[in-house]
């Protein structure tokens, strides 16, 4: 007996009718078509924002489990693993990019600014260009490209292998095991990456300055930078690391956890999560910079 909508058993000479695969896809122009095109992305964005807020609240609620010593032990092992993979193993690429940025920045500035002025203004330029903007932005992009994509893929595959269900069966919340370590490790990793980036840019900048002026005083330049960095600058950078890292981590988990049945959903999840993370991270950085540094 054929199924009610089985089109393979059509009577001869009858026209073959093909049902639309997805009834949501408009197959002819209607008034509602353009309206749906406007409303759907907004609705989807709203859903995503609500999901992300929900995830953050779930993570904060699950954090109370960390007060129990044995459970904290399970968390800490995963947290250290995450810090190592995200904050420590990223140092070489962060360092390499910082060397290139430092060298390029100073050699370009030398083209426009006289040597003496350059040394005088070094601290201010470093603080405005590197410490405030480039350090956070480039470190965030590296975190997204290198670690957030891995987390999305990892969570996606864990979902495909039904490991979330296994954990639920064991009475262990997947949030505790998969979300919390990322939720806490990403901000800390990002902060480490900021510091490391700034340090390497400074060292490579000094190397370029020293090549053109071997009498340039290392400690004078360092002190010129430190004098520019106020508590406010440190707080804004800390906020960028905490908010940026937390959002990057939560977005990875959100899109990874949407994977259900197919391997192709994992690549979709990575693509969607990376796009969203870049957007959100740039918005956070720019908003904080405008709020903090606009006179």
């Amino acid at each position, binding site marked *: 007996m054929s199924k009610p909508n089985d089109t393979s058993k059509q009577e001869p000479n009858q026209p073959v009718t093909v049902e639309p695969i997805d009834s949501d896809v408009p197959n002819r122009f209607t008034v509602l078509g353009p309206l749906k095109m406007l409303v759907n992305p907004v609705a989807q964005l709203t859903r995503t924002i609500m999901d992300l807020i929900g995830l953050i609240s779930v993570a904060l609620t699950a954090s109370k489990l960390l007060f129990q010593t*044995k459970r904290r032990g399970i968390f800490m092992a995963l947290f250290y693993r995450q810090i190592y993979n995200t904050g420590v193993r990223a140092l070489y690429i962060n360092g390499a990019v910082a060397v290139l940025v430092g060298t390029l920045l100073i050699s370009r500035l030398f083209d426009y600014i006289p040597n003496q002025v350059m040394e005088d203004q070094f601290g201010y330029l470093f603080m405005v260009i590197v410490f405030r903007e480039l350090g956070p932005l480039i470190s965030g992009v590296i975190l997204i490209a290198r670690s957030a994509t891995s987390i999305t893929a990892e969570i996606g595959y864990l979902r495909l292998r039904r490991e979330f269900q296994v954990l639920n069966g064991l009475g*262990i919340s997947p949030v505790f095991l998969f979300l919390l370590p990322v939720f806490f490790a990403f901000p800390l990793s990002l902060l480490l990456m900021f510091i490391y980036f700034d340090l390497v840019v400074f060292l490579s900048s000094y190397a370029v300055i020293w090549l053109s002026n071997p009498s340039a005083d290392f400690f004078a330049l360092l002190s010129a930078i430190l004098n520019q960095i106020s508590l406010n600058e440190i707080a804004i950078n800390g906020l960028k690391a905490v908010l940026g890292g937390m959002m990057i981590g939560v977005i990875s988990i959100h899109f990874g956890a949407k994977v259900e049945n197919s391997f192709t959903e994992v690549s979709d999840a990575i693509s969607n999560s990376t796009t969203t993370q870049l957007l959100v991270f740039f918005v956070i950085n720019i908003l904080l910079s405008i709020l903090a540094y606009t006179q």
Partner: protein
Amino acid sequence: MTGTLTLENLHIEYPEVLLFDRLNVAFPIGSLIGIETDVLDGATSLLKGIGGMLYDIDGRSILNGRNILTMPASERARKVGFVYEDEGLISLYDVFQNIALPLEFHTDLNVAQTRSLIDATIEALNVPKALLQMQPHELNDVQTRLVNLARALVMSPELLLIDELEGGMPDDMIDSTMRLLKGKARKENMTVLLTSSNEHVLREVDQVLKIQSNQLVESPV
């Protein structure tokens, strides 16, 4: 007998398939119950339903007076063990950590006690110790199921649900595993509910049921 596992109006239905229609069955505690299974007959869903691992099902699954379906997750994890037919391990962890995970999360055992309990359990299951250091993806199907079983047994659950343990196992391994389960069931008052299509296994249990017309009925095996 000190108690029962009772299913009261347990109803499992997916959007297009009715699997179990208001089951009302009672099993004595400390017994081994076999459910003779066939392809896609819903036996795995039944085990998960009884163990409180399915959402949106109706009815009650009462273990010694407590409804498993409404138990807090932590209590359920201590009272109900589940052995998956395939996979079922957490790929972030090696075999030892997989077995230790519920102990670390739900009990107050220290590291030495956890290690000693795991060693004793895998020895009883004739699992080589070298397996403990391996990753889940390095195990074959039989080893994966034995690790699943070890993880459930270390918690000494009141109810053990086993989904087709025997696939790929030689007869002597099936015999020794069934002997172990029978001994534990009697000694620890643990009820074991297992699905199987293997007559060798079903001969070893106290009662055999089969799935017929969305109900559990006595099987002549």
